[in-house]
C-alpha cells in the first residue's frame, strides 16, 4: 500500500483476512467516513424522494400532474425539465459546501 499523500498508487501484495478478525478503523477515518456518509445519504434520500415523486405523480395523480400552469406548460413538464435540472445542481452544491465546512472544522480541531 502506498503512503497516504503520495502521488500514485503502488502495487503491493497483501493477503486476506477473515472479516471477523479485521481490526476496527482508526477513530479519525471512522469519524470522517461517518460524517461524510450521513450527509451524503441524507441528501440522496431527499433527492430520491423528489425523483420518484415525479413518476408517482404522473401515474397516480395525472389530473394534478398534467394540470396546465401557464400556456401549455403542465406541472409535471415544468418540474421534470426545469425544477429537477436545478435540483441536481442544488443538491451537489449543498453537499460540497457542507464538505468544505467539515474540512475547515477538522483543520481547526487539529490546530
Amino acid at each position, binding site marked *: *500500500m*502506498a503512503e*497516504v*499523500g*503520495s*502521488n*500514485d*498508487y503502488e*502495487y*503491493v*501484495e*497483501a*493477503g*486476506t*483476512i*477473515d*472479516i471477523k478478525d*479485521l*481490526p476496527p*478503523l*482508526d477513530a*479519525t*477515518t471512522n469519524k*470522517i*467516513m461517518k460524517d*461524510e456518509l450521513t450527509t*451524503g445519504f441524507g*441528501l*440522496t434520500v431527499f*433527492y430520491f424522494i423528489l*425523483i*420518484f415523486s415525479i*413518476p408517482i405523480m*404522473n*401515474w397516480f395523480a*395525472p389530473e394534478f*400532474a*398534467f394540470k396546465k400552469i401557464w*400556456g*401549455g*406548460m*403542465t406541472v*409535471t*413538464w415544468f418540474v*421534470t*425539465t*426545469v425544477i*429537477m*435540472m436545478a435540483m*441536481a*445542481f442544488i*443538491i*451537489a452544491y449543498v*453537499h*460540497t459546501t457542507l*464538505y*468544505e465546512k467539515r*474540512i475547515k472544522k*477538522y*483543520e481547526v480541531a487539529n490546530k
Partner: protein
Amino acid sequence: MMKALLEPKMIMTIALMGTIVYITYLTKKNTTASDFFVGGRSFGWFTNGSAIGGDYLSAATFLGIAGLTFQLGYDGAYYAFCFSIGLTLLAIFVAGPLRRFGAFTVADFLAYRFHSKRARLVAVAVVLAISGFYAAPQLLGAAQILSMFFGTSYEFGIIFTCVVMIFYVGIGGMKGTTINQALELWIRLGAFVVMLIAAMYSGLHYDKILAAINSFSGPITGTSPYALDGKDINFDGAAWTGTGFYFPTFWQTISMTIGLALGTIGLPHILLRFYTNPSAKAARKSALMAIGIASTFFLLAVFLGVVGRAIFISGTASEEVMRDLVLGGNNMVIPTTALALGGKWLLGLVIAGAFAAIFSNLSGLFITSSGALAHDLYATVMKKDITQKQRVIAAKVSIVLLGIIYGALGLLVKDASIGHLVALAFTVAASTFTPIFILGIWWRGMTERGAIAGLLIGLGVSMWMIFLPGTLPSFLQFKIPGIVTVPAGFLSVIIVSLLDRKVPADVNDFMKRVHSKESETV
C-alpha cells in the same frame, strides 16, 4: 469546389478541425504514462469541470435528447431528467475518494483494492463493453451528420471519424484530449444558446409552443412527399405531451429512472476524469461545475426538441426543413431546427457543435479504453517490465486497434436511436461498476470474489435483458432494464462478499487513503 468550401457549415467544421489539430500539436509531448493517461494530474477544476461536461454531454445530449423529445414528447424529456441525476450522485459518493485513491484507470481501482489480477482482467472486459456501447451511437451521429449535410456515405462517415479520433487521441493523449474537450464544450453550449435566442426571437416561447402542440391532432401538412406510404404523417399532440407515449407502464418508467440515474457513477470515461485533478477538493469542484453545465444543457436540449416539434407541425417550414425532419429521423432534429431558425450560418455553428460533442465524447472513450488495453492488460498483466516510453507506444497502438473495433460497431447501429443506445450503456454501467465503486469505497466487507461476481452477473444479466428480451416472461421485458439489472449487480457483490468473508488485509489502510483529510491535497 470553392463555392462548397465557402459554405458556412464547411467553414465552421474546418475551423473546428483546425483548432483540434493546433491544440493536439501543442500538447503532443507525452513522455510518461501519467502524462498520457491522466494529463500529469495537472488540470484545475475549471478546465476539468468543462472537460467532464464535455465528456458527459455527448452526441446523446446534443443530438439525442432533443431527438427523443421531438419523437416521444414528455417521455423523451424524461430521459433528460434521468440523465441529469447521475453526476450529482457521483459527486456525493465517488468523486473525492476516487481522486484521493490516485491511479491511472478504472481497473486500477479493483486491482489495488483487492490486490487482484483477476479483478483487473474482468474490469478491463467490462470497460471495453461499456465503451463499445457508448462509442457506437457517437459514430452513428457523426456519420449521419456527414451523410445528411455533406453528402458522404454512412460508411465513409464512420471511417472518417475513426481516423480523426486516432490522430486526435493518439497524438494528444489526455492533455490534448482534456483541452480539446473543454473548448468543445463551450462551442456546443454556445450553439444551444444561439438557438435559444433565435427561437425566442421567432416567438417560439415554451408555454406557447407546448399549447400549440397539445391542441394539435391529425395529419402534418407537407410530410407526404417524404413519408414511406406517401401520406401525411399523423400526430396526436395530447398523447405526445402526456406520459405513457413510450413507456407504457409505471414500472417501465421506474426501471429507466434507476438505470439512468445510477449509470453515471459506473461510466469509465467519466470516472477516469477525476484522476486528472490535482486534489480531491478540485475533483468535487469539477463535478459541481460539470453538473451546472449539464443541467443547463439538458434544459436547453428538451426545449429545442419541443421547438423542433412545433416547427414540424406548424405547416410553415420550408420543404428542405420538412424533408430533413422526416428523412433525418429524430437524431437530426437539432441541425434541422437550426436551419429553420437561423439559416445556413446557424446550421454551420450547430454542425460544428455536433462534431465537438462527438469528438469530445469519443476521445474520452478512446483514452479510457486505451488505458484498459495498454495499461491494464499489456503493461500490468502481460508484460510488466516495460519503460514509460514503451507504455505510451502501447497506448498509441491500442488507440489504432480501438478505432477499428469502434468503427465496426458503428457500422452495425445505422438505424438506431442515439439517445436510447446511450441509455443502454448507462444501464450496463449502473449494473457493473456502480455497485463496485459505491461498495468498494464505503464498505470494508467487500471481497475480491464479491467484486468479480458483481461485475460478471451485472454484465451478464444486462446483456441478456437488452439483447434477448424475447426469452423472458413479459413482466421482465423492459425497454431500459435497470430495475432488475442494478439490484442484481448490488446483491451479487453483497451476497458473495458475505459468504466469502475474506477481505484484503490492508483494507483499513485503503479506507484511510481514500477518506482521510491528510490525502486531501496530493
